[in-house]
């Protein structure tokens, strides 16, 4: 990311060229026209492995390894810069949170208190995610805040699910697509970094599929919430396979001393 920013300053013509062909919308809340609702711009950078890294494993059912999201969006709506289809009262809450952040007094969210990030936000992380596959299970080990998701395969959700930050996840394969279904989420987290609300009735469906011959992992994320959303919505993300990366110890409770720089997590 640092390289990208430096390059952008060094070559303004390139920035203009990107502006011309890129997203024409300014990074403000879609259709608001209100400068106090300026969004934090998303990070648009590839997190491709360095040259010489082995190519991805093409086996569509082997998702094991370290994956890194390409880019980072602060608002997780159906497309970049667009909020989730929140009901009017929840859209007003989102606007309140964006204004508070723009004034420099953001409302504390779960992650600032070393609590897990919630869904779908935990999947929108600028840190790597390691997938481990064992019989009947797929496990996501997130570097960020050592979040962990256990996905139990080919079984229903328990009849009674205790609410938790990352919910109860079950999964199954539909051809070459891993489908993960998550319920039982508490309402102490936000959908996204900007602060879109969800309720305990939130229901998240993820569809993972290897693309680029195994070098990338596509995620179609679908979010349903009859309390806060007008209707379900989906968005697409792509993760890159990063066999060169080893997830590092992340200790939120001591104000994490490690951070990703140019695609590798290093001690600060």
């Amino acid at each position, binding site marked *: 990311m640092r390289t990208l920013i430096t390059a952008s300053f060094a070559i303004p013509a390139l920035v203009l060229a990107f502006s011309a062909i890129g997203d024409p919308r300014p990074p403000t809340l879609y259709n608001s026209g209100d400068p106090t609702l300026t969004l934090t711009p998303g990070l648009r950078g590839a997190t491709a492995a360095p040259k010489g890294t082995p*190519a991805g494993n*093409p086996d569509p059912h082997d998702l*094991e390894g370290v994956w890194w999201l390409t880019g980072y969006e602060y608002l997780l709506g159906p497309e970049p810069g667009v909020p989730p289809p929140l009901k009017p009262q929840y859209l007003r809450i989102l606007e309140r949170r964006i204004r508070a952040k723009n004034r420099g007094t953001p409302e504390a969210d779960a992650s600032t*208190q*070393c*609590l*897990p990030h919630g869904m779908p936000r935990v999947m929108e992380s600028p840190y790597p995610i390691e997938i*481990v596959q*064992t*019989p009947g*299970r797929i*496990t996501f*080990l997130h570097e960020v805040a*050592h*979040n*962990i998701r*256990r996905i*139990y395969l080919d079984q229903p959700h328990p009849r009674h699910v*205790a609410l*938790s*930050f*990352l919910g109860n996840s079950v999964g199954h394969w539909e051809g070459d697509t891993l489908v993960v279904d998550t319920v039982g989420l508490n309402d102490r987290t936000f959908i996204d970094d900007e602060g879109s609300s969800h309720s305990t009735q939130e229901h998240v469906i993820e569809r993972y599929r290897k693309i680029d*011959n195994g070098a990338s992992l596509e995620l179609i994320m679908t979010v349903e919430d009859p309390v806060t959303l007008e209707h379900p919505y989906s968005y697409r993300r792509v993760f890159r396979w990063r066999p060169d990366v*080893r*997830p590092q*110890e992340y*200790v*939120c*409770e*001591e104000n994490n001393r490690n951070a990703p720089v140019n695609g590798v997590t290093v*001690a600060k």
Partner: protein
Amino acid sequence: MSVASRYRHAVLSAVALTLAAAAHAAPDLTGVWQITGHMGAVKTTDGGAPPLTADAKAVYDAHRKAAAKGDYSFDGVTRCLPPGLPRLMLMHEPFEILQRDKIVYFVYQVNRLPRRAYLNEALPTDVDPHYLGYSVAHWDADTLVVESAGFDDSTLLDNAGLPHSEDMHLTERYQLSPDGKRLRLTYTVEDPKTFTKPWSAQAEYTHLTGYQIPEEVCAATPVAKRPRD
């Protein structure tokens, strides 16, 4: 990928798998485990206390004195910091082993902490200190041997407050019982700054079947209810 290289990849994978299978009929430790009994202060396999140096004994005695008054401020666990090792292996909360060909993962219920042991690699000689150190592993016949170094010296070695230095070198040897229901750990601590000689101790774990590790979040847990042994 071309058809030829795809084929080559498949053949190589098959050969690698066959070699791996032949090289070790390693037992599968994958599953949820919980320590048997309650571990307070560790006892060495000789039945005694770990042989502390005079300086380290003064630190340990201060911890015990504070704990007797109910003051656990010396213990980072009360502030949700990782417990360190081998202590994390001696706590009551269950943990899970996910055993793969290149990495053995230990994932603890305690604050959802993960630990990775990279198989068949040498332990780096200069490791930045981390709460859970840096671990490599290999199979010695049917025993999983995990070697760790690079420990932050703010953690405690056991639930009673035993200290260690950044120079601690930990060797863990895991053996599965023939019926697969129990896991035996024998560990050896070498730390000349803290102990007058290396020492070993043991712990045993029971396999928990049908147990799904719940999400345990230290920061969401009142201080008095945070697990510390």
